[in-house]
């Protein structure tokens, strides 16, 4: 197929003749493409962020269920599980949430063993050097930047008074703030020693929130899971593979606001399409009639209409994608971000990692451009196949 530049010239003139209508179509079309791709970009970046660290998560997490609710698990279980062949290590964890009423936010508190030694070694990597303070005893905590901000706003600059489960106050110093690079993971986190976590969360010393198991050979994982299941039928066992599946299905396109946004975008798009396919205006029909009377073939008319549709949809596509990139990654997706973050006061900066996924770009290309072009061509074809005489009249 050779490209007839005179036909392109004619298409541009034809588009310019209806400047306001076509500008409006480009604006709406660009907006729709930007909206759809923004949602895809956000969910894609979040999935990427989740999947980049999944291998470092525990192989198996064991939770105890009581009447369908997750309850604390006895520490005796830890000793029994470690005896299962293939289990490398078993740790009972103490973690939970602390509701800070002044700001109306939930902090996640995690207690870790050997806090001081860990602090000097691996924690060194994740703590912002400028925020480190000299700590002499075990009575300190490491906080996420979101927690630090909330505490600062409430005048807790160096330490924080936890109201522990028995109602007494527990003053804990702030030993450091996590680096801003890991804000998406650590924003609401408070890391304390296990002992402190027991006190703050009010967990019985003979119990743990859950148990994590490390397995020497990944191939033995399922066997070990079955053995634990047989030993403790009242537990819920989450493997690393389960987490992978869970991460894959984090956003449900079938429900809620996602669906609303999708439906609004697609319906608006299809209303434009419907408007185009439902028939040409009398001036457009006359134009086709005149072209035919002048000797244009149906083929030429369709080509000209194809160029028209392609120019509009391609420009909108490129503009839409560019706007989506700027909106999501440079501006951190204002408004759309609120849907993902909810109304909590403890918000991250939503600094998402940039991931380019050609599948998404191709998908958006094929659900928008061919539909629009065909919506331009089909009614013109219907008119072009009629006699010129009939059309002009």
């Amino acid at each position, binding site marked *: 197929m050779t490209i007839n530049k005179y036909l392109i010239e004619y298409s541009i003139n034809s588009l310019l003749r209806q400047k306001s209508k076509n500008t409006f179509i480009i604006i709406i079309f660009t907006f729709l493409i930007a909206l759809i791709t923004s949602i895809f970009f956000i969910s894609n970046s979040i999935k990427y962020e989740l999947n980049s660290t999944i291998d470092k998560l525990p192989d198996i997490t064991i939770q105890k269920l009581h009447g369908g609710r997750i309850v604390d698990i006895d520490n005796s279980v830890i000793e029994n599980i470690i005896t299962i062949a293939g289990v490398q290590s078993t740790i009972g964890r103490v973690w939970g949430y602390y509701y800070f009423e002044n700001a109306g936010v939930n902090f996640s508190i995690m207690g870790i063993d050997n806090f001081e030694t860990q602090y000097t070694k691996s924690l060194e990597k994740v703590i912002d050097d400028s925020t480190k303070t000299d700590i002499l005893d075990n009575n300190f905590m490491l906080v996420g930047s979101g927690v630090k901000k909330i505490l600062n706003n409430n005048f807790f600059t160096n330490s924080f008074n936890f109201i522990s489960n028995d109602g007494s106050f527990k003053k804990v110093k702030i030993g450091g703030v996590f680096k801003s690079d890991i804000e998406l993971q650590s924003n609401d986190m408070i890391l304390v020693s296990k002992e402190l976590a027991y006190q703050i969360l009010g967990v019985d010393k003979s119990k743990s929130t859950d148990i994590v198991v490390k397995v020497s050979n990944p191939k033995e994982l399922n066997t070990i899971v079955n053995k634990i299941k047989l030993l403790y039928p009242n537990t*819920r066992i989450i493997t690393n593979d389960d*987490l992978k599946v869970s991460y894959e299905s*984090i956003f449900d396109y079938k429900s809620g606001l996602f669906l609303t946004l999708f439906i609004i975008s697609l319906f608006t798009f299809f209303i434009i399409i419907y408007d185009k396919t439902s028939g040409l205006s009398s001036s457009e029909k006359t134009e086709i009639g005149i072209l035919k009377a002048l000797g244009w073939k149906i083929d030429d008319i369709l080509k000209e209409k194809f160029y028209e549709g392609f120019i509009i949809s391609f420009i909108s596509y490129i503009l839409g994608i560019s706007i989506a990139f700027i909106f999501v990654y440079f501006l951190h997706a204002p408004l759309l971000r609120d*849907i993902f973050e909810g109304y909590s006061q403890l918000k991250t900066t939503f600094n998402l*990692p940039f991931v380019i996924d050609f599948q998404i770009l191709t998908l958006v290309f094929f659900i928008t451009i061919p539909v629009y072009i065909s919506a331009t061509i089909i009614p013109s074809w219907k008119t072009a196949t009629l006699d010129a005489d009939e059309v002009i009249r």
Partner: protein
Amino acid sequence: MNKKTNSLFIFTTLLLISLLAIVTVLDIFYTTNNKTIDIKKSFVNIVGLPDLAISTETNYIRHRSLSNISTIFSDGPEHTEYATASFITNVAKISHDDK
């Protein structure tokens, strides 16, 4: 090529160049580098908890993968979905029954 076709061509090329420029800038400054991934991995290794701190108002969204379908009832039997983020996040389909 005539004037209008020329301007359209130039306009489209400019659009494509700006898109490429945006992608390049994002690729250079906004992609997670190995060092950052390493820091993230260290943190996750220490803490051992899955999911991101994007939405923290409920535990079934904050630690979605560790919650189950009935978690929402533990918060209060009268609760229906109320957190904005719960309208877009799917319930983690991990159940002890399918083991």
